[in-house]
């Protein structure tokens, strides 16, 4: 009995040591390594999370070789405790030399620590940041100049760096190319004012909270923020800063992450000492509560990508009991009225599109939700040639716990209202703990990251903040150190070099920027490029060892290496043996790298047409908000317009254009003449300007030699037997147009498609939804037009084919009759074989193809001569998740029995089925059902849908299923079809339209695809980063952004070829934006 604990401990030890062996990182006891620093936080009634909003942000850590012995040393700052410096003695033994070095610091609240050689003497100096001027915090940022003998001299005043503001971090960069280190000083706001205020606040400079750019003028730093164009307002909650050359023009740029409602800042260095902030041009959405960030090239294109951390929990119980995203109306107010960028509460992975803009892929990449995250650091930890990602995590108390906010806090503070102090220690203790293990993700060539927490590192409950990368044991792979709250730091010692190859590079220069900050390295191995740049301030409140590191898997040699120094001079190396540390001397080489040749754009296939040929159509969506009426609808149905139809409507042989409109605007007809396009009326016909035309077709319906116009109406807003929902026909006669109704139908039409068979023209009108009753299937129809009369042809399921979005006529069985292939949401593609007078459904797709299909085209993907079916789906960059094993469901019923139906969408997580919506959202539609059952968020959070709704009510529901969200193609294998998903570049957004055409005039057609969609709730963010794709065949897919198309942040609805002056042009129609015409530079093919 007595020995039981001992035996248990022994067994545990055995197990632990076994496990340790298998992990990529081992975690030695820091005390055994000589590191006993602990950032102890002491909460008092005078100083806690209420008094200082960043009370839990933790200290800083800087790693660098302070005595040039080849071993990286460690400097740790404490918030309230003294800072410490540890000298690396080798073999993971460290010695506390703080006292002799004189670097313990004198500020009351320290934040970041960074290292850099500020006085150009070849020794790394230490700069620490402090928060001063609130809560009786005293002191100032301190600069410890390295004397070269393990002692330091505090000289911040002499250097003009003794800022006494609210500093959170500092980044060293040579922004003006004068061969010394300048500083971007990151400050944070303390703005407790609860209203947002206008985004213009950032332009009014404020000493204590505003960020600063400090120019190194020969040993003294000058604040040049104003002249350099750096914002310094009262609302910049700066918590993260990354330096990188995002547009690869040779000048370092800056990305700043701001907490709360302030936008992040994206400063592009203009090369003339100034910066241009252009976040909104380059980013379609950003993280909301931005914390730390990091920049690195992940996809081997030589352009640094960015991760910006937030605080979205992954775990269902925490997720559903924490405050989530704001509602749509608030978001729109912040964007449209106050001038902020779209922000959403989750990590954002911003993939650089050749310096032009960024495609955000965190959901697709699997790194969107890592809870209360502080530091992100990219590096190739397992040395397989792909960048991996470490994220530090945790907060002692979750201050956004909904039960605390709504039900607990009040009882705690009720009796304290008279005090100025509203909350005390006791109340703080009621908040749930937010300690969470650190995450580590394995990167891949597909931009998908695999969570390796628990495998590569141990899952602990320590709260970690500032993190630095270094090779502490000099074995070539990258180790990590995290500064923890109330604990010794964690050392993560990497074992990758035992089984894989590395190349470590350090840069040295005799004078000036002695450690080569800003140097870029491009390595080529087996045709794959890897890019690194040396900016040690990374992640959060920290700087890493100033080295460049590559991993190369099992390779032994590197094909080539290009080093570009900050002054654009460069060195090239060939056939370098790996597993070595290369010291590259930045000396007097004269040749400069030509950044114009940087891997990037060739001559584009598409260029914007001059003056758009007079086409000035701008679609304006109306302000109807589906989520206000059907609160649980999974996405909007009112924003699927406008219709685009092309054809000659005035008999002059030139192609005219018709665009539908949203409610409250009128549809527009553009007549083409030799002068381009002019807005015109259709021979006196007045359009009903209250309709929404979502689909339209110009065709000679009655074969009288004159084109007619069919419009398919919808819009989601009109409901019931509202005449605006009826589809229309405008028949052209010699005297003008006659309008008529295309039958008594009142659903939202999505597509009109014309086919032909042995009897002539045949038409399909597809219906998407029934307004105010999402989930009730509408009727789609097939008809012929004879003698001015419509003849309907029966369809299976009485035409209730599903929530149809697109259709294709194609003679699949080669019987001379076009068959109908229909796609839509919450359904599988359906093939209806045309037997002349009837349609017979043929099963061709297996179960796994239930999708949220948006578009369909036929195209020969595999060059085998037959047409394959290309299918545009929702994409996988979404909070919707679905597979055959873990499908997404939608339950449709009048759950609360009040005469209105609702839908509940669920996805699977760890085998359980959870609603996507929060308790408040569900209660907003079914208050009795939810609130009677759940009196707090804890009970709701983590509950399976069956528990939430109850199995009785579940049985009442119609169930819709989605098993695949990826776009792809169905390979035609002699009539049977096999599905192949597209690569991830084509899964970032819904693909809404496709156009087959021989764009490059090489005799083979290509398929141009486009998409994006914004009609989702804020918790889903928005799908805005798809720049289109030009598909030559399955193996040759060109990103739209590389073809010259600018589809970024545009919700594309239609692609058309329009002939102007006998030449083809590409017409792109967008929802709620201008239509664009592109010149197709076909001759380029000859070059």
């Amino acid at each position, binding site marked *: 009995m007595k020995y039981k604990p001992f035996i248990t401990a022994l067994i545990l030890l055995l197990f632990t040591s076994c496990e340790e062996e298998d992990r990529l990182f081992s975690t030695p006891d820091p005390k055994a390594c000589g590191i006993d620093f602990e950032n102890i936080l002491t909460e008092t009634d005078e100083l806690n*999370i*209420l008094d200082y909003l*960043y009370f839990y942000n933790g200290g800083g850590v800087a790693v660098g070789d302070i005595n040039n012995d080849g071993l990286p040393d460690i400097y740790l700052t404490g918030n309230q405790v003294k800072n410490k410096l540890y000298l690396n003695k080798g073999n993971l033994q460290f010695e506390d030399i703080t006292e002799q070095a004189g670097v313990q610091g004198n500020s009351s609240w320290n934040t970041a620590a960074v290292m850099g050689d500020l006085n150009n003497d070849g020794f790394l100096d230490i700069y620490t940041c402090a928060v001063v001027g609130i809560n009786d915090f005293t002191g100032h940022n301190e600069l410890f100049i390295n004397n070269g003998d393990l002692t330091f001299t505090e000289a911040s005043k002499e250097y003009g760096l003794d800022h006494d503001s609210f500093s959170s971090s500092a980044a060293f960069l040579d922004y003006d190319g004068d061969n010394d280190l300048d500083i971007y000083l990151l400050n944070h706001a303390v703005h407790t004012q*609860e209203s947002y205020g206008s985004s213009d606040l950032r332009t009014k400079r404020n000493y204590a909270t505003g960020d600063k750019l400090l120019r190194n003028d020969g040993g003294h730093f000058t604040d040049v923020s104003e002249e350099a164009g750096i914002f310094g307002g009262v609302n910049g909650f700066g918590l993260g800063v990354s330096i990188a050359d995002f547009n690869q023009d040779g000048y370092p740029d800056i990305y700043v992450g701001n907490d709360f409602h302030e936008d992040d800042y994206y400063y592009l260095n203009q090369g003339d000492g100034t910066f241009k902030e252009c976040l909104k041009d380059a980013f379609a959405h950003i993280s909301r509560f931005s914390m730390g960030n990091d920049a690195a090239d992940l996809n081997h294109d030589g352009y640094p990508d960015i991760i910006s951390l937030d605080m979205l929990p992954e775990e269902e119980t925490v997720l559903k009991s924490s405050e989530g995203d704001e509602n749509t109306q608030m978001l729109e107010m912040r964007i449209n*009225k106050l001038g902020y960028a779209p922000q959403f509460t989750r990590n954002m992975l911003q993939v650089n599109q050749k310096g032009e803009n960024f495609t955000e892929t965190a959901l697709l990449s699997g790194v969107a939700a890592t809870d209360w995250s502080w530091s992100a650091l990219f590096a190739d930890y397992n040395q397989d040639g792909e960048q991996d990602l470490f994220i530090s995590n945790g907060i002692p108390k979750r201050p956004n716990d909904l039960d605390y906010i*709504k039900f607990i806090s009040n009882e705690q503070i*009720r009796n304290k209202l008279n005090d100025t102090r509203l909350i005390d220690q006791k109340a703080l203790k009621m908040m749930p703990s937010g300690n969470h293990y650190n995450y580590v993700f394995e990167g891949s060539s597909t931009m998908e990251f695999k969570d390796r927490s628990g495998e590569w590192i141990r899952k602990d409950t320590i709260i970690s903040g500032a993190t630095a990368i270094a090779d502490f044991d000099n074995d070539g792979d990258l180790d990590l150190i995290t500064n923890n709250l109330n604990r010794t730091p964690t050392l993560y010692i990497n074992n990758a070099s035992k089984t894989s190859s590395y190349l470590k590079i350090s840069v040295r220069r005799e004078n000036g920027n002695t450690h080569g900050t800003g140097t870029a390295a491009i390595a080529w191995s087996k045709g794959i490029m890897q890019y690194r740049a040396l900016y040690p301030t990374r992640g959060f409140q920290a700087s890493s060892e100033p080295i460049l590191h590559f991993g190369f898997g099992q390779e032994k040699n590197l094909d080539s290496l290009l080093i570009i120094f900050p002054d654009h001079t460069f060195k090239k190396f060939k056939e370098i043996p790996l597993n070595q540390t290369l010291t590259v001397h930045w000396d007097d080489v004269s040749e400069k790298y030509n950044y114009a040749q940087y891997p990037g754009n060739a001559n584009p296939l598409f260029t914007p047409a001059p003056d758009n040929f007079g086409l000035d159509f701008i679609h304006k969506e109306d302000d109807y908000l589906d989520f206000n*009426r059907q609160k649980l609808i999974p996405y909007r149905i009112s924003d699927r317009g406008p219709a685009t139809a092309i054809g000659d409507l005035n008999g002059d042989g030139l192609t005219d254009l018709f665009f539908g409109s949203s409610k409250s605007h009128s549809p527009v007809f553009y007549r083409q003449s030799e002068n381009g396009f002019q807005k015109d009326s259709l021979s006196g016909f007045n359009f009903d300007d209250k309709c929404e035309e979502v689909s339209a077709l110009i065709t000679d319906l009655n074969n009288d030699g004159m084109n007619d116009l069919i419009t398919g109406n919808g819009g989601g807003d009109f409901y019931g037997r509202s005449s605006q929902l009826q589809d229309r026909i405008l028949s052209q006669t010699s005297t003008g147009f006659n309008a008529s109704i295309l039958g008594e139908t009142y659903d939202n039409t999505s597509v009109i498609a014309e086919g032909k068979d042995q009897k002539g023209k045949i038409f399909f009108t597809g219906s998407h939804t029934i307004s105010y009753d999402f989930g009730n299937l509408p009727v789609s129809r097939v008809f012929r037009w004879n003698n001015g009369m419509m003849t309907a042809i029966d369809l299976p399921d009485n035409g209730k084919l599903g929530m149809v979005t697109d259709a294709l006529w194609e003679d699949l069985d080669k019987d001379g009759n076009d068959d109908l292939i229909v796609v839509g949401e919450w359904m599988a593609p359906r093939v209806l074989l045309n037997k002349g007078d009837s349609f017979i459904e043929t099963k061709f797709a297996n179960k796994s193809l239930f999708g949220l299909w948006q578009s369909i085209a036929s195209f020969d993907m595999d060059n085998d001569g037959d047409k394959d079916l290309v299918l545009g789906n929702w994409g996988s960059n979404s909070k919707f998740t679905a597979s055959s094993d873990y499908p997404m469901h939608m339950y449709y019923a009048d759950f609360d029995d*009040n*005469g209105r139906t609702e839908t509940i969408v669920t996805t699977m997580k760890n085998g359980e089925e959870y609603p996507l919506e929060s308790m408040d959202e569900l209660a907003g539609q079914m208050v009795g059902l939810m609130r009677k059952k759940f009196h707090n968020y804890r009970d709701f959070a983590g509950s399976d849908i069956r528990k939430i709704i109850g199995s009785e009510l579940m049985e009442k529901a119609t169930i819709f299923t989605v098993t695949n969200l990826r776009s792809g193609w169905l390979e035609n294998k002699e009539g049977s079809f096999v599905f192949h998903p597209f690569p991830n570049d084509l899964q970032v957004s819904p693909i809404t339209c496709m156009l087959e055409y021989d764009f490059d005039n090489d005799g083979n057609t290509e398929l141009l695809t486009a998409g994006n969609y914004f009609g989702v709730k804020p918790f889903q963010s928005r799908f805005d980063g798809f720049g289109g794709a030009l598909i030559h065949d399955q193996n040759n897919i060109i990103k739209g952004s590389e073809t010259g198309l600018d589809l970024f942040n545009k919700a594309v609805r239609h692609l058309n070829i329009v002939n102007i002056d006998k030449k083809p042009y590409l017409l792109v129609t967008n929802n709620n934006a201008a239509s664009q015409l592109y010149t197709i530079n076909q001759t380029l093919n000859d070059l």
Partner: protein
Amino acid sequence: MKKTLFYFGILCILISVSCNRETKPVEITAEQMHISIDRVVDVMIHDIFSPPVASRIFAYANIAAYEIIAQSDPEYNSLTGMLNGLEAIPKADSEIINPQMAALMAHMEISKSLIFSEDRIEMYRDSLYNVWQQADETTFLASKDYADKVISHMKKWMDKDNYKQTRTMPKFTVNSDDPSRWQPTPPAYMDGIEPHWMKIRPFAIDSSSQFKPVPPPGFSMDKDSKFYEEVMEVYNTGVRIVNDDSEEVAIARFWDCNPYVSVTRGHLMFATKKITPGAHWIGICKIACRKDKADFNKTVYAYTKTSIGIADGFISCWDEKYRSNLIRPETVINQYIDDNWKPILQTPPFPEYTSGHSVVSGAAAIVLTDIFGDDFYFDDDTETPYGLPVRSFSSFNKAAEEAAISRMYGGIHYRAAIDNGLKQGRLLGNFVIKKLDMNNREQLAEN
């Protein structure tokens, strides 16, 4: 501490009951009704009911209790025929029934069905049920049986008031293009609450628009306009009294009655919760009943009439709020006058005109004056559990006037919303007391 005392009290009762096994008549006291009301108020605070929804809960529970009393006490008339859609409740079919017991049962059960956290009411209910059952099981069971019939009757009536349907009606759509329209306000920027409350079947009034007030001064930032003048009055008042231990600030805070004040400090969020304006006036009704030494039946009568005035007051007020849809002072002042200005009270999440507190206070004061007389001096300690002091008033109407003007001091309403709101409430209150011929005392005395 309070809770412990409460349990101790129950324990004492239990012990005394168990020591005395023989059947003895149970007396239902006015105090028990007060406690039942207090329980409901506690749950409302916990569950965070908005003022209109809270007023509906009070009204139905009180009416259920009252209808049972009116069955047995000739002094009181049934509300059948006076309240929209209310049909006569089932007759008591047994002599054994204790009508007051059944009334209190109905009050607790109807309340329980309308709030969310049922356990908080069940605790009190079960403690009473135990005592009653121990004392006189036959009476208890018969009364319970009868109460259940009445409850089911009342629920059928309640179910037809369109409450259920309004839960799924569209959310309020913010129109940010029109500068006069209401917009969500800091810090929580909540949606406009209960935009369809005017569609709830009113109790006594004919329709939600019966007491439609004159329109508010037209939105204009022209310095000579009435609207601008009223905006500046709010702003200047706020600037004058802020950071001051002035009487105005004390008045504003006393009548805040905001069920959910959201506080944000960085990532830290919490809420301070108080009773609603309706619950404050229910509290005043309790004070009046106690001072008047009203018996159980009169207490139920007073609560019922007052809560009907309040509930109809909210329906009438909300009808106007989403008609005029007027922007709050905080939004206007931040946008045009001073972007740093903050009202002393947190702006509640619905349009400005008319002031809900003014309408409801006006209506409640008229009803209470009708029951307890004018010149009724009282010490209002309703807000002491929320850390606020006692204020004394010489009459209900004086209290209502102070409640109304407190919204100006609080920086959340313009003058017109207060003056016209008070007027709207008083007209409505007078209609209610005239229409609801509930009390026969005078006629009985004459006979």
